[in-house]
């Protein structure tokens, strides 16, 4: 059945590519969307089957490429990532039908989209080095095409694509290096062979492979300081593509790291985990701070992806540290927390990106300071975006809370531990996770509040209409997934156990016990019932409502303006904007963010005691980009300038170079 589903997925993807290349625009969009959804759905079914049954599916295609074959090895770890992909890809594909009709309907974009979905699903399914790299590159190329899809009317997309291409190449380069070294040392290309050959790998080689893959997969996951492409590329891609990229593609960085570091290499010393944890801490803080101050909705979501990947890294790193210090049950809880977060993140970040796309296509802007009042104009988008915002802010009773809770439990119960580094790292980790949670709540109050509530700030926002039906279906489906994951995370207890068994080097055990309603952890006396929590909240609300209605309610006055301190006119210009909302927190973190603020005051010509206009400009640069990348880039540019002096276009000089080379070669190889 698993094989059939995977074959169906491949067939659907091929068919979608074919119709994307052949059909005229209007049918093209519809059929590509439907078949991409089918492809993702089939992949999801395969993943669900593996997670439910626990069998690993393998298949070999030995002669697919001239240099090596492709092997499919579909185990529980692969399946959880494919499941996450399917969760976001099916609704995104359906949404894409409506979205593409007004946007990226060109042939290349419509061909690249099913390719990307299929590539993202097949990367975790690959069972050998060649397969992994092939699918990885497929995914990278198709996503690159899609980032460029709207470059005609959006010049920003070109610089974004440049950054994306270079970071993707860096990522691919390091991954290829890491996997090549690994395969060479272990004496085999397939993962089974590598696992069997880990004994031949010395600790130094293992460390080199681990660090290389940390860089390569970390760049894909968008963790700081390798995140620079993410806040550029994700906003510029079409929204359903951003949903898939942010929800599922970046998570493959985590997949790769776990697969190479803890599955193939079988784990390592404590500092591996500590390094991953540290990267996670920095990313989480950095990501959420920049999301907080960002007033571009999609950029905000992209930075929040860096934050969430940081949280996943914290979980993986903590699991690695616990595993090396011998606390296997806790390691499996930490791993379960990050895997649940991957699935949850796919659902809510996908939902939020689709919502952002809906807003973008209705108003033509992503600038929060130019939106407002959309709740009554776009009720479906507003309701689903609200679900996503509450979920990503980790508020109960939604799904983000469950994974946050698991993560905190695993961190909190690490003490007392006999490893000093654990004892030092865990309080810091809890503090960072907590601060991240608080800031995420503030960020998404800002995002939802300034977009959907109060008065529209521009004419465009005032004249917005709800998106077409297909887009609404995508939104509602993902919101439904969020709610389902929130109420019944217990259904994932057994699959998470299979995942933790699949990663032998990290954890083995049964992280979560459940009787259907309560979540209980192994070795930790702590319980949570998201279902009962939601029920309790609903019961309380109904009770309050009943009591209030019972006490003879007087009439409700509705058609009145808001209380504006008696001012004659109350306009949207008086509302707090996204920038002003974030200002207090930005000031609190001034020392980290280093904002550049210009204030110009124009005086009236009559007297300089009267002010004509005040212009306030604030610019916050990405610290890593500014301090790390730009210096490196300027050095590279200087080399480039030097090279230009060597290459001045004179044919004589080029011939002279050839002569010199020939002489050198002759001398050297004498």
């Amino acid at each position, binding site marked *: 059945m698993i094989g059939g589903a995977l074959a169906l997925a491949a067939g659907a993807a091929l068919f979608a590519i074919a119709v994307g290349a052949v059909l005229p625009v209007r049918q093209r969009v519809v059929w590509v969307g439907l078949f991409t959804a089918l492809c993702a759905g089939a992949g999801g079914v395969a993943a669900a089957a593996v997670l439910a049954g626990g069998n690993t599916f393998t298949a070999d295609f030995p002669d697919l490429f001239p240099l090596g074959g492709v092997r499919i090895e579909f185990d529980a770890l692969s399946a959880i990532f494919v499941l996450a992909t399917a969760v976001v890809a099916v609704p995104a594909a359906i949404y894409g039908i409506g979205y593409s009709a007004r946007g990226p309907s060109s042939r290349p974009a419509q061909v690249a989209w099913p390719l990307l979905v299929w590539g993202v699903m097949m990367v975790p399914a690959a069972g050998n080095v060649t397969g992994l790299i092939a699918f990885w590159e497929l995914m990278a190329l198709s996503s690159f095409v899609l980032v460029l899809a709207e470059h005609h009317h959006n010049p920003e997309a070109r610089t974004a694509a440049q950054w994306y291409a270079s970071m993707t190449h860096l990522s691919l380069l390091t991954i290829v290096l890491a996997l090549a070294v690994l395969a060479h040392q272990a004496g085999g290309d397939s993962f089974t062979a590598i696992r069997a050959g880990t004994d031949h790998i010395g600790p130094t080689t293992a460390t080199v492979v681990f660090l290389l893959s940390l860089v390569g997969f970390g760049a894909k996951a968008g963790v700081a300081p390798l995140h620079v492409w993410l806040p550029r590329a994700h906003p510029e891609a079409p929204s359903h593509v951003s949903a898939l990229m942010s929800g599922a593609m970046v998570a493959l960085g985590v997949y790769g790291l776990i697969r190479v570091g803890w599955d193939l290499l079988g784990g390592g010393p404590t500092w591996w985990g500590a390094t991953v944890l540290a990267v996670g801490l920095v990313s989480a803080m950095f990501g959420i701070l920049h999301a907080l101050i960002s007033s571009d909705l999609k950029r905000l979501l992209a930075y929040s992806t860096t934050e969430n990947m940081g949280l996943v890294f914290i979980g993986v790193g903590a699991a690695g540290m616990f595993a090396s210090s011998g606390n296997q049950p806790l390691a499996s809880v930490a791993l379960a927390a990050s895997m649940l977060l991957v699935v949850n993140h796919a659902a809510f970040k996908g939902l939020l990106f689709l919502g952002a796309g809906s807003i973008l296509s209705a108003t033509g802007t992503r600038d929060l300071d130019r939106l407002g009042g959309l709740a009554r104009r776009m009720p479906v988008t507003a309701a689903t975006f609200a679900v996503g915002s509450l979920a990503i802010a980790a508020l109960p009773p939604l799904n983000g809370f469950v994974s946050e809770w698991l993560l905190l439990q695993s961190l909190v119960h690490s003490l007392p531990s006999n490893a*000093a580094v654990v*004892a*030092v790292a865990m*309080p*810091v980790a809890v503090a960072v996770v907590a601060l991240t949670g608080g800031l995420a709540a503030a960020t998404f109050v800002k995002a939802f509040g300034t977009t959907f509530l109060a008065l529209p700030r521009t004419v465009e926002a005032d004249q917005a209409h709800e998106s077409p039906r297909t887009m609404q279906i995508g939104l509602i489906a993902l919101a439904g997934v969020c709610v389902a994951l929130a109420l019944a995370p217990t259904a994932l207890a057994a699959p998470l156990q299979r995942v933790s068994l699949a990663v032998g080097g990290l954890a083995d055990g049964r992280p979560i016990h459940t009787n259907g309603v309560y979540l209980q952890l192994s070795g930790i006396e702590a319980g949570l019932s998201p279902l009962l929590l939601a029920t309790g909240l609903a019961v309380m609300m109904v009770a309050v409502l009943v009591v209030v209605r019972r006490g003879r309610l007087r009439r409700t006055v509705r058609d009145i303006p808001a209380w504006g301190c008696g001012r004659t006119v109350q306009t949207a210009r008086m509302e707090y904007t996204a920038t002003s909302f974030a200002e207090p927190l930005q000031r609190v973190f001034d*020392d980290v963010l280093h904002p550049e603020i210009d204030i110009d005051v124009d005086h009236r010509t009559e007297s300089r005691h009267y002010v004509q206009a005040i212009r306030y400009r604030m610019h916050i640069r990405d610290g890593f980009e500014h301090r790390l990348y730009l210096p490196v880039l300027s050095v590279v540019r200087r080399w480039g300038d030097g090279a230009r002096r060597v290459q001045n276009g004179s044919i004589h000089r080029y011939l002279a170079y050839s002569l010199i080379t020939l002489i050198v070669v002759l001398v050297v190889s004498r």
Partner: protein
Amino acid sequence: MTTTRFVQLLDLAAGLVLVTSFAVLWLRRLVTVTWVIAVQGMALAAVALVIGVYEHETELALIALMVFALRGLVLPGLILRAVRAGDEHREVESLINVPAALLAASGLTLVAYATTRDVVALSSTPQVRALPLGIAVMLIGMLLIVTRRKAVLQIMGVLMVDNGIALVMFLGTSGVPLAVELGIASDVLLAMFILQVLTARIRTKFGGTDLDQLRELRD
């Protein structure tokens, strides 16, 4: 005194020494800071007293009395006088802001714990387990010296470093010879006097003791 009671009292007193050093970083009014330094000295005395009573060492109890008088009363009194004498008894000025200083101090505490783990592991007496507190107080004292602008606060920093050293000695060696303690105390007193004289001189000559302004003397 039962062992549990002893452990509790010891932890409480040693914990107070640490908390007061955080309070010094947090507070802004110089007079209040001086009071907190006095409380720290008293807490230090309490540590010595608790150990002395538990181990029936009269000598240590005597030292406790002396520490109380010197670090709880005399030295803070002198500092208070210096603070009041200058017209600078208003607010602390710092090179880094308060939350950053507090976070740095908690980092230093972690460092203190992490670095003394091996020592602590050697012996499991309650005294030794509280040892990192002393190191932490020392480090926070140094942080104070490094980050504060006013000379008076540097004096307090020196005093805090010294309190930390004393705490380490009480906890680590359980029973410092009286002579050693006397010697150290007199050293501190000497340093105090010198600094105070210096401060007074600088103030009469240049007015105020802002270190950034002092730097201009060099140029």
